[in-house]
Each structure stands twice: as C-alpha cells, then as structure tokens.
C-alpha cells in the first residue's frame, strides 16, 4: 500500500490484559484517511476493546496509540472532538427527547446548542424521524434509537468514525441510506472504523478488512486480497477458515438434539 498521507490512526505493539486473560496480543496497525476498515473477529476477540482503547474508555494497555499523530495517553481529550462513536450497546439518556439529547451531545463536542439542534432536526428529518424529534427517546423503537446514535456520532462532522454494529435494528431501506452515507464520507477523506458480525455488509462496504482472532491480527487487506489467499469465496467462508472453525454443522445438530430432549421428560 502506498500512502502519501500520514496515518490518522497508528497503533504499535498494543497489548491489553484484563485481570485473568490477554485480550490483545501485540496489535500493529496504521489507518489512513478515506479508508473504511472492516474490523472483524469472533466474539471476545478484542474488537470492542481496541475501539474503546482508542476512545480512552479503557486504560491499562501497553504500547502506543496515536490518533491524528498524537499519543492519546497524554491525557488531553481534545482529539475526541474529531471522532464520532457508535457504541455496541445503544446507551442513551432515555428520559431526554432527541432534540435535547442531540443538542447536548453537540455541546459536548463544542458546538453551539442551537446549531446542533438545528442540524440534528434536519438530519432526523432525512431519516424519517421528524415526528419523533420532540419525543422522549425512551419511547423509541430499537431502530429509531440506532438512528439517533448514528446522528449523534456524525453531528459534529468528525474525521474518524468508530462504529460498532452501526446497522443493528435498522430496516433495509435505512441500511441502504446509511451504507451510502459511509461511502460518501470515506470519499470525502473521512476514516471509518467499522466492526460488525454481519459479514455480507463488511464485505461490501469495506475498503480494507482486518480480522483479529485471539488478540492477534490474522488477516489484513482488501476483500480481493483476502480472497486470493484463501480457498473460500465469501468473507464468511474466509472468516470461518481463518478462525479455524469448521464444526458448525455438528454443533447445530447437537443443539437441536438438546432442545428436543426436554419434551420426552414431560
């Protein structure tokens, strides 16, 4: 890969262990502007931990993490101003209305409340949520909450987006819109760091796919590159192959057998 620019994210020798187990075992990574990174791996592989470290939510790692060329361990939170984040769990302040919530988030990012609210209202309108703008988030459906989260992550026009399952709960039409948004943002030089378990989506939207397993990077490259090295034709197949998983049929069979067992006891 040939990159004239400086990497926006550069990670060197990132190790992280929770009290009893290693989560990350020496991750090295450089991410450049305009890339859509599909960050994939099995449950517990360390995907969320990596993202949380970059956001400063998790501490106690060893190694260096540089974002916008600056080591994030210096305690200055200012770099977060240029980052948007959609967490895996849709944690929001439920008892606020979308207007209040988004206005507040905008303020945290240093925007003026009125500007943030106005922008938020337009974005909500585009995602078909204008009727809900003044309703409390507690009354929202899962998809609506997800849209609010997406808006809150992009309201301040960030340069990097960290997205953890950003499409969960969205209907097919919204998924198309959001995927298109990501592509356009990347074309404008924004970096998108995308983790998901839905391989089809990752395969289609990512310009580069990073697969981690057991805290190590086991594959890194575009989908085409990964396909060359593998016998499998789909990302799902590559995923199974690289994580050494081929027993799905056996397990599914046993699972169904266990479900059936209870009946005979009754």
């Amino acid at each position, binding site marked *: 890969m040939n990159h004239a620019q400086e990497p926006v994210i550069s990670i060197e020798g990132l190790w992280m262990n929770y009290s009893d187990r290693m989560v990350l075992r020496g991750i090295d990574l450089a991410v450049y502007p305009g890339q859509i990174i599909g960050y994939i791996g099995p449950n517990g592989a360390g995907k969320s931990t990596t993202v949380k470290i970059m956001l400063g939510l998790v501490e106690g790692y060893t190694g260096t993490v540089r974002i916008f060329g600056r080591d994030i361990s210096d305690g200055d939170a200012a770099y977060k101003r240029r980052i948007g984040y959609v967490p895996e769990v849709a944690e929001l302040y439920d008892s606020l209305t979308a207007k209040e919530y988004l206005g*507040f988030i905008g303020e*945290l990012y240093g925007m003026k409340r009125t500007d943030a609210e106005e922008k938020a209202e337009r974005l909500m309108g585009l995602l078909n949520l204008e009727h809900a703008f003044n309703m*409390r988030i507690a009354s929202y459906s899962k998809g609506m909450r997800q849209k609010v989260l997406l808006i809150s992550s992009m309201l301040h026009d960030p340069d990097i987006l960290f997205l953890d399952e950003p499409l969960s709960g969205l209907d097919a039409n919204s998924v198309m819109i959001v995927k298109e948004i990501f592509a356009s943002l990347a074309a404008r030089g924004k970096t998108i760091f995308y983790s998901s378990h839905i391989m089809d989506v990752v395969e289609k939207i990512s310009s580069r796919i990073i697969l981690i397993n057991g805290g190590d990077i086991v594959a890194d490259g575009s989908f085409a590159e990964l396909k060359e090295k593998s016998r499998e034709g789909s990302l799902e197949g590559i995923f199974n192959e690289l994580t050494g998983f081929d027993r799905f049929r056996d397990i599914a069979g046993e699972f169904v057998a266990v479900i059936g067992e209870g009946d005979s006891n009754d």
Partner: protein
Amino acid sequence: MTEFYVLKLLDRLQGVFRRTGVDYPVLRSILQVKLTMDARRTPTVLAGGKDNKQTTAEGSPFRIQWIYLLLGLMLILFVVQDGNYIFSMSITFAILMFMIATTLISDFSSVMLDLRDKNILFSKPVNRRTLNMAKSLHVLIYLLTLTLTVTGPSLIVSLFKQGIVFFLIYAAAVILMDCLILVITALIYLLILRVFDGEKLKDIINYVQIILSIGIAVGYQLVSRLFNLADLTVSYEPAWWQYLLAPAWFASPFELLLGGNRSVHLTVMSVLALVVPVLLLAVYIKLMPMFERSLQKLASEEGAGKDSGNMARRLSELFCQGKEEALFFRFTWSMMRNERDFKLKVYPTFGLSLILPFIFIFNVLWGGGGLEELRNTKAFLFIYFCALLMMTAVQMLRYSTSYRGAWIYKTIPLPGLSPVYRGMLKAAILRLLIPLFVIEGAIFLWLFGVRFLPHLIIVLPALLLYSVLCFRLLPKSLPFSEQYSAARQKDFTGSAFVQMFILMGLAGLHYVISLIPFGIYIYAPVLVIANWWIWRISFPRAELGGS
C-alpha cells in the same frame, strides 16, 4: 430543557472552575442534562407506552421534603440560645452532619461510584476532571438543597434573633460542612479504590459503608454525650479531644466572634473549620482524574459467581409454597447478592439498624445504673429498631440498573403476581432481616439474660408482621423492575413516616403486653394468627392476570 436557577448561580463561579482545569461550558451542559433527567420519570418497562410523551406530573429534584423541614424546625431551639454558642452549635452541627453524611452514603454513593455514563460522556471530548466535577456538583446540589431544607427555618430565625453576623457564619459553616462531608466520603472511596482490586473491591465498599454509617452514628452520640445535653449552661472547658470533633470546629467561630471568647483553643478550631474543608477540597480536585481512573476497576469483569445457589434452593424449598414462589425467592436472593446498587443503598441502613438498638441501650446505661439495672427495664424493646432495615430494603427491591430486564415478567406464563411478591418478600426477610435479628438477638440475650428469651421469641413474628406492612404501605412494584432516581425517593417519605409509627406502635404494644402478667403468652398466638392472616390477604392465592 429547563434552565435551572442553580446553574445561573454556578455561572457566577465559572472563573473558579476554569482555574481548576474544568471545561465550564461542558460542565454546565452535563449538569443541566442531569438535573433535567432527575426531574423526569423514566417510564418503567412495565408501565408500557402510556406516558411516553411529556408528562406534566413530574417530581422536581428540588421539591421540599417536609420531613426534613420538620427536623429543621427543631433546630430552631438550638440557634435561639444566647451565649454558650459552642454547646448549642456543636450539637446543631452534630445533628446536621449525622443526617447529611448518612444520606450521602446511602443515597448518593451510587451516583459517586457511577460508571453508566462513561460510554456516553467519556467518548466525547470531556476530560476526567470535568466529568468528576460534574458528578460531585450534582451530588453537592442535592446535598445543599437537603441542607437548606433542614437549616432553612433555623437560618431565618437566627437572622432575626441573633443578627446578621450569626446568620452569615451559620450559612458559611453549613456550606463548608457539606463540602467537608462530600470530600471526606469521596476520599475514603478513592483510598479503597486505590488499595483494593476487582471483585474484592465491590464487597469492601459495602463493608466500608456499613462501618461508616456505624461510625457516624456513634460519633454523633459522642458529641451529644461529651458536651452533655442536659447541661447547656455549664461553663465551657477546652480539651484536646475537641480538636477531633468536626462539629465543634464549626461551632467555634460563633463563640469566637460573637461570644467574645478569644482563647487560642477556639481560634485554632475556627481556623480548622475553614482550612480543613478548603484544603481537602483542593486535594480532592487535584485527585479527581485519579478517582475517575480508579473507578474503572469497578467495571472490571465479574468473577464467576461462586455461589452455587444451594443455600437459596434449600431455603426456598423450606419456606416457599409452590414453584413460582420458590422461583422468585431464588431470583430475588441472587439479585440481592449481585446488584451493586441495591447493596450500595441497603448496606448503610444495615449498619445503622445494627447499631441503633445498642445506641439507645447505651443511652440508658449512661443515664445511670449498671447491667443489673438495665435488666429490670424494658430497654430490650429497642430491638424493634433493627426492623428499620426492612423499610429501606422493601423500598429498594423495586430498583435495578438492569431494570429493562423486567420484560421477562410479561413474557413468562405467570398465574398471578402473588407468588412473585411473596417470594420476593421472603427472600428479603431471610437474607437481610433474619441474620440481623439473630446477631442482635444473641447480643440482647447476653445483655438481658435468659429471662428475655420469651420476649425475643415474640419479637420475631412482630417483625415479620411489620415486614408485610412495609410491603403493603409502599406502592407495589415488581422486583428489580424500575430505574432508581434520587428525585423519586421523596415520594416515599410519607409512607416511611407511617412505617416508623407502626414500628413504634408494635414496640409500644409489646410494652403494654409485658406489663400484664403472662400477657406475652397470650400475645404470642395472637401474633402468629395475625401473621397468617396478613400474609394470606396480602398475597391472595387466587389472584389472576394482574399487570
């Protein structure tokens, strides 16, 4: 969003915040959001979509709590005294500190040790200091409202009776006191967070809460004892131990500036009243980022549950009728074990309920006479106070951080809600009340001798009866199905008052019965029948549907 008056007051101080490295605009918006949310009720999962729109009937966090106002009226007695400020004001501040500190530890520990916000706030450009400052101010605003309610009446009276100087000293001392309490509590938590790690930390925090509330209760007793309430006129004699009593610090400036007593001793204590809170506050602000960082430990992964559930299963088989009841008994049992918020709020009361009967007994002992004398009194009735625990416990059982999990109640095939409530209450009694009662009972038995045993046996069914009454007096709510909000607690002060009276009534009844020869032997079966009856009508068997 509402513009809060407090925030406008804070705006005046923004220079001070800026100097401590706080991002003021961010701080302000976090506080505004927090206060707005406190004023709103989160519709519970079970309430359904009915009141999702802006409801008008909302509890303001600043609604006056009349029970505290009542207490505040009592303080007037102390501030109208002329002369001997050191006595009257020491007692005033001892009462205040006791109240404020216990409230802080039981109601606001969960806010101070809160991690829930972290994903939302800390992924934004908010620095640690600002976040922690917002949290502390959030707590402090509540504390000050509470303090103001309590001190309000006496403040106003003092302005007219004692003049402006007294009023100003009083007001300043109250604010300093609040800061002192908040900072000391936070620093103690910080120390624990630094020293301990992981799973142990969570238990230690609960023990510390118990010890703190016991310590404060005992300390409060010491102040009123050492100054001897009965002798308000006695001349003042300085002693070294007074340096250790924070209420005495805050009382000193009154004596120094108004009483005209310019002794070195009083000057030193007055200086302490000013310097210690400010100094500790500075230390705390310095350590704030460390506090936030250490808090992370609380989030560390839970160790695998060591409890195999054997105990709960055996108990549920022994005490529950029917499968559903046993199920909810075990559910409540394990939730009480694991729900950190529940423990944070109930354990301080556990400590208080543990110590309170002995404090009363200690007072009787102090009044003269030895153990022999004590045995001839009816002081054993103080054991009833250990049931105060049930007041808090039953009230807190409705809350959970994972209140959203309550959808499960709607999807499982339940024949009725009675078994749920019955199992829940039985679990709370067996897990909290019974152990407490056994400890208390053993010590009481030792204090009062075997002669007390029949009485002790009667107290148990009386307390069981009381537990059901507590449950009945509070609005019914499925276990662990609501989100906790400090603002809503005020809804319960009314019934808490009634519950107090009922408990005292039960103790009073016991007293009357004990005057009648062989009365308790008649009372015992009456209590048993009353228990049987009230459990029956509180949890009717044939209830259907019900949501």
